[in-house]
């Protein structure tokens, strides 16, 4: 799994590439925690290039979502598709996780906050 950070004004986009599994999902949590120290408050996690996710990956998304919610920070998770979408649906988290269709959709939503 590879994580790239892009920036659009005050919004930070984390582009996740590869597989979010039991061996590497903690890296996304660690990255977000580091970004919180730097006072980032608007996040997009783009999952367009993620082909595989397991319960650890889902756990990382839940952890990030819950942590940001508690601090009233803003997050959208974009471009869930294929088996990633399926696992999120099976876990019944489509209503809990802040999902956006595309990065562009997420940017529009975050510009309003």
């Amino acid at each position, binding site marked *: 799994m590879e994580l790239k950070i892009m920036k659009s004004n005050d919004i930070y986009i984390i582009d996740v590439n590869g597989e979010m599994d039991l061996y590497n999902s*903690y890296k996304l949590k660690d990255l977000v925690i580091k970004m919180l120290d730097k006072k980032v408050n608007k996040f997009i996690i783009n999952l367009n290039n993620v082909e595989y996710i397991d319960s650890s990956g889902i756990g990382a998304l839940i952890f990030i979502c819950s942590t940001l919610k508690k601090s009233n920070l803003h997050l959208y998770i974009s471009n869930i598709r294929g088996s990633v979408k399926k696992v999120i649906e099976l876990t019944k988290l489509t209503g809990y996780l802040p999902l956006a269709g595309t990065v562009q959709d997420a940017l529009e939503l975050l510009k309003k906050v």
Partner: protein
Amino acid sequence: MAKMILKDNNHPLFNTDQMFYKEFPSDFRQIRYFTLLIVQKAPPEIKELNLLEQQISELIKNAVKHGNKSDPDKKIKVWYYFSQEETRLIVEDEGKGFTKIDEWNDFNAKRQDCLKNNDFEKLADYVAYTTEDSDYHDGGNAMFAALEFWNEGVVFTEKANCVAVGKTYPRKQKGITIGD
């Protein structure tokens, strides 16, 4: 009735007739590799092979990590069967067993209530099932998805160190005529 994890030594999902068998050491680093060794027997017609792999990997992970505590001297035993219509899997470890099944079912029932009522505030308390055994890497959500995915059931033995699961796939339409 709401879906639950069952405990039943005599459940038909524990019937190992016609099933393949493999055993693996409890090597945490190789969980996904062991899973691939099993999934390679699945017919290519099965859709969403990635999802099947992930669901099998979760059960192997639970056995290696939570059951056998990644002790390399302890084995996990896996029985598996694949056809275009059905997948069945049994995973056994040498651990103390998943003793908190009742507690888990109770937790899951409360989670289902939150989902039914669209109560996402309260759902926050039920998105992950964790125990003193859980660590930073555990999502605590694998078995919620397992109950949905394995539509023939998720059943443990009374000792609860052995789990059997099954999934049936909708039958394909037959009898398509090509040409005259």
